[in-house]
């Protein structure tokens, strides 16, 4: 008779009442070309892809809209309010995004500082309150502060998205303790957004028990974005698997793996 525990089985990620196929979400910015972006998304296995709301370029000197390259039946388009520095501005962008007609989700960013792109907590909370009242499903990009995370949840955010490190920095998970604490205290999904640089960062982040990761630059700025997307897919799965499996305790002393008995005289 076996005494092995049943292999840890995962449950699907559910955000705002919708089930998502992958715990890895990816952005669509900064790719060198659209074909690379499309192939990287494919390799990542991500269902959720983020997009930004911007003016149409009426002179057509720049790239066309992203919808010429993405299939909204295959990808779940999560619009962001990137670049917004006040609650009013973010609310305006969110309303425009919803009018595009895909869904009621918004990745809410209210930026408070140009150098670090760290969130403006006051503006974030205010915009969350207004948008939730308007029926938006708010996924709130925030810092790793527990109290802010709790307030976002209380205001009705469907997911809280603490940063691993500043947007586009690739510095990895700087505050595992704080992210773990947020995950432990919140009921809504916690999805780490921003700062992951390479596969080990994604793996360590998922090992904290968070529900998912959103990344963009780690793929777009890799030498080979498609290969990195594949690596990230594996890293997210590995990190999630290790979390579910439950790691061994850390010890400050060595414990031999081979028997101490049976050694020769």
């Amino acid at each position, binding site marked *: 008779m076996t005494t092995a525990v049943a292999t840890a089985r995962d449950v699907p990620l559910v955000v705002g009442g919708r089930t998502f196929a992958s715990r890895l979400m990816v952005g669509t910015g900064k790719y060198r070309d659209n074909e690379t972006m499309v192939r990287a998304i494919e390799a990542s296995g991500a269902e959720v892809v983020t*997009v930004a709301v911007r003016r149409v370029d009426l002179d057509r000197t720049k790239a066309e*809209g*992203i*919808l010429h390259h993405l299939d909204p039946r295959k990808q779940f388009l999560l619009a962001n309010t990137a670049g917004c520095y006040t609650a009013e501005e973010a609310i305006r962008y969110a309303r425009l995004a919803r009018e595009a*007609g895909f869904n009621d989700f918004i990745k809410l960013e209210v930026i408070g500082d140009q150098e670090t792109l760290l969130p403006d907590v006051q503006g974030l909370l205010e915009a969350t309150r207004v948008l939730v009242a308007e029926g938006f499903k708010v996924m709130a990009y925030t810092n790793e502060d527990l109290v802010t995370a709790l307030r976002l949840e209380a205001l009705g955010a469907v997911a809280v998205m603490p940063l691993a490190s500043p947007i586009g920095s690739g510095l990895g998970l700087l505050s595992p303790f704080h992210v773990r604490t947020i995950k432990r205290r919140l009921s809504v999904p916690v999805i780490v957004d*921003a700062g992951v640089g390479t596969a080990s960062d994604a793996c360590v982040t998922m090992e904290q028990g968070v529900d998912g990761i959103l990344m963009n630059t780690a793929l777009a700025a890799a030498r080979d974005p498609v290969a990195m997307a594949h690596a990230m897919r594996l890293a997210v799965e590995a990190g999630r698997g290790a979390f579910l499996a439950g790691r061994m305790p850390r010890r400050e002393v060595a414990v031999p793996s081979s028997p101490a008995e049976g050694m020769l005289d």
Partner: protein
Amino acid sequence: MTVQRVDDTIEIIINGARRRVPRDATLRDVLSVLDLDPRLVVVEHNRRIVRRPALPDVRVAPDDTLELVHFVGGG
């Protein structure tokens, strides 16, 4: 001497730049003039979003402000 002529266009502000569009144009007409697919663009008219089905019903007036936005790559 000044030449009197019938001007059948008006000037409005689209995405921050002044442009001439036909007088009495609807928002749907403006998108057509600009060769934009209304299914891929969201229209804000004088700071108010105009839903797609209403685009043929709203006419622009001189100095109106339009923002025409769409989704672009972002994180």
